[in-house]
């Protein structure tokens, strides 16, 4: 005989889970009691939102499924932002929540909330388990659904009596998972793939537009091979950074609203756009009618609903990105050089580099560049949201997939620090830095407590401009510099860190940037760098909302 809580823990271990992020409460007491004797590592966060973000960061850094745990009612509700963040960026997370006993469901019992109802639109699927007998199967299904097809978060809600009831339990056999209504397409259609190859060979000005799907399917080697064999310049979305080496001659960096001028020019001029694991998000396309206006579009995605959603497509290919790119490579009978085009793109790159003013003051971009120089290619950069995120995306040279972790779709301030904690558990041997703004970091700064308690060596680089910088930038550019409620009084983050028992230093001169980063990297525990940067720096270039992506402000004169 085993109770539900024990069955849960055994099921998690069978799925290969080693670390979970959670916060206890009444309805999950039986689970915590089982965790007490278990060799599953449980990290006690300081706010459930952080548990969800940490599970998400763990998943993004490792490619495995992240797990978080919270009690019913307020605990479960606190997970919601984290679950929605994972959903928007297709991150495999399994969230386990406590619930009031089955007999009290629907009675507005103490700490009851309809968390399956609440998370319906932000989960790939969710379950309310009403019988202990179903628990093991549901956990198996939850992991299978979270991690296959287009990944995403799955929530499992467990009433207290389901966890306490004892049943005669035999673990389910490891037979192949069969869920009737869930059969994601894996192989791409060979005819469509052949058509795509043909189009790319015929094209004069091809561009690859690569997104997060390349990373989640592990398709970087195939992408690099295809780009090299056909000499196609590659631009990546915010989510795709790292899927193609930032220092590769064919790399164009990020496209879209804060993309590079050359990436946006190349897409606009292109006659054949290969979109891989990307979803034509409005931050990428700008005015969608003028996005890649001369190009035939090939779109590879695992999710059929993404194809044709925002932009009509000429060659749709549904399936796993890696498998499809491998099939394309196998079909290539010859290589291509696209010399004239590649040369033209190279000239743009030379003439329109990313740039910022260097007048001797400490500018936020310098911090990102210094981090890029200091960390090895395995170093992991996590970001918050706002200007800090965009500068990180623009100026850090990512060389490997899964080294860039950022909330793209939802744009969740407060994501970075807890996600960095999760990433550190996934990659204990890598340096992990959260590039933060002074606004964002204060949304989950309580996690300094978690980092201190477990001596987690994550580093936070705060680009402290005493503004909600990105909002201030929009107010400067589009609201006549009326800075309505975007100024933040200075916070002494070194002293905040100290209160939690965490070391840190304040940096005010640009000469101190590199040494301070070195000090942070050498610290044994967590470390806070409080960079007092120029306050009214803007992220450029920028495509104003609703404009075409080649109409950038803050770029070079043509």
């Amino acid at each position, binding site marked *: 005989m085993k109770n539900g809580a024990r069955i849960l823990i055994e099921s998690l271990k069978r799925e290969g889970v080693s670390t979970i992020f959670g916060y206890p409460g009444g309805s999950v007491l039986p689970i915590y009691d089982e965790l007490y004797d278990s060799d599953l590592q449980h990290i006690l966060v300081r706010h459930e939102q952080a548990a969800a973000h940490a599970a998400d960061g763990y998943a993004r850094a490792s490619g495995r499924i992240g797990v978080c745990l919270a009690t019913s009612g307020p605990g479960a509700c606190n997970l919601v932002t984290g679950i929605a963040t994972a959903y928007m960026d297709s991150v495999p997370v399994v969230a386990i929540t406590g619930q009031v006993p089955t007999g009290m469901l629907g009675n507005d019992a103490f700490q009851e909330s309809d968390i*399956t*109802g609440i998370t*319906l*639109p932000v989960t*790939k*699927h969710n379950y*309310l388990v009403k019988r202990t007998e179903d628990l093991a199967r549901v956990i198996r299904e939850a992991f299978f*659904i979270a991690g296959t097809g287009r990944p995403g978060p799955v929530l499992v809600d467990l009433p207290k009596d389901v966890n306490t009831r004892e049943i005669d339990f035999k673990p389910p056999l490891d037979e192949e998972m069969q*869920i*009737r*209504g*869930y*059969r994601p397409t894996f192989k791409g259609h060979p005819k469509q793939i052949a058509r795509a190859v043909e189009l790319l060979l015929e094209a004069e000005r091809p561009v690859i537009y690569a997104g997060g799907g390349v990373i989640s399917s592990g398709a970087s080697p195939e992408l690099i091979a295809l780009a090299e064999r056909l000499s196609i310049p590659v631009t990546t979305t915010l989510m795709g950074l790292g899927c193609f080496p930032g220092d590769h001659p064919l790399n164009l960096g990020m496209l879209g609203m804060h993309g590079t001028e050359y990436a946006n020019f190349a897409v606009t001029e292109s006659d054949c756009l290969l979109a891989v694991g990307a979803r034509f998000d409005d931050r990428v396309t700008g005015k969608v009618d003028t996005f890649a206006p001369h190009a035939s579009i090939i779109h590879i995605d695992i*999710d*059929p*609903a993404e194809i*044709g*959603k925002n932009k009509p497509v000429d060659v749709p290919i549904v399936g796993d990105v890696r498998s499809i790119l491998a099939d394309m490579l196998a079909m290539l009978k010859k290589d291509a050089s696209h010399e004239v085009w590649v040369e033209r793109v190279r000239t743009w790159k030379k003439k329109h580099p990313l740039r910022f003013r260097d007048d001797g003051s400490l500018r936020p971009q310098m911090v990102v560049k210094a981090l890029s120089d200091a960390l090895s290619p395995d170093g992991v950069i996590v970001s918050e949201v706002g200007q800090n995120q965009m500068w990180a995306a623009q100026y850090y040279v990512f060389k490997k997939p899964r080294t860039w972790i950022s909330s793209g779709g939802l744009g969740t301030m407060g994501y970075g620090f807890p996600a960095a904690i999760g990433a550190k558990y996934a990659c204990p041997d890598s340096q992990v830095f959260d590039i933060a703004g002074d606004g964002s970091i204060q949304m989950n700064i309580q996690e300094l407590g978690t980092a201190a308690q477990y001596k987690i060596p994550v580093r936070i680089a705060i680009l402290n401009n005493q503004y909600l910088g990105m909002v201030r930038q929009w107010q400067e550019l589009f609201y006549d510099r009326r800075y309505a409620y975007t100024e933040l009084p200075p916070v002494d983050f070194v002293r905040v860190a100290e209160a939690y028992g965490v070391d840190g230093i304040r940096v005010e001169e640009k000469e101190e940037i590199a040494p301070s980063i070195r000090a942070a990297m050498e610290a044994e525990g967590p470390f806070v760098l409080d960079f007092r940067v120029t306050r009214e720096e803007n992220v450029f270039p920028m495509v104003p909302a609703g404009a075409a992506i080649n109409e950038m402000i803050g770029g070079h004169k043509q």
Partner: protein
Amino acid sequence: MKPHTLSVLVENKAGVLSRVTGLFSRRGFNIESLAVGTCEEPGLSRITIVCIGDDAQIEQVIKQLNKLIEVIKVSDITENDRVERELALVKVNAEPGSGRAEVMQVAQIFRANVVDVGAKTVILQVIGDTDKIDALEKLLRQYGVIELVRTGKIGILRGSKTVKSGK
């Protein structure tokens, strides 16, 4: 923009209807009519949804519905040869001597059944496509429609074609 009839085969599980309808409201699609019931296969239900949209919108609805784990199959049966029916129960003012005879006559023309006769009212049951029921309602209005209940449209393909599982 025209009405599309979608036949959706789902697992008969708690919450599946709210997943389906939630998807429509979340993505900004309107449901014109909705009918749910069990079907020939134990454990499954069939939902017939009528919604209005252009082809791209309907395609997106179908793709999004297909992503729901508990949805087994979705078919747009609008373009196919099909039978569609709706049932309505109408409670009409029909006092003896003042309109009752005329109401009965209207019922006859529409092949509606009188399923209840009260002191001042009668209840008619009519089966047909949406237009027929709309037309009947319009005619009865002059006598005073007290209450109208409609099932929502259900549809089935003619001949040997089916909307069955095997997604």
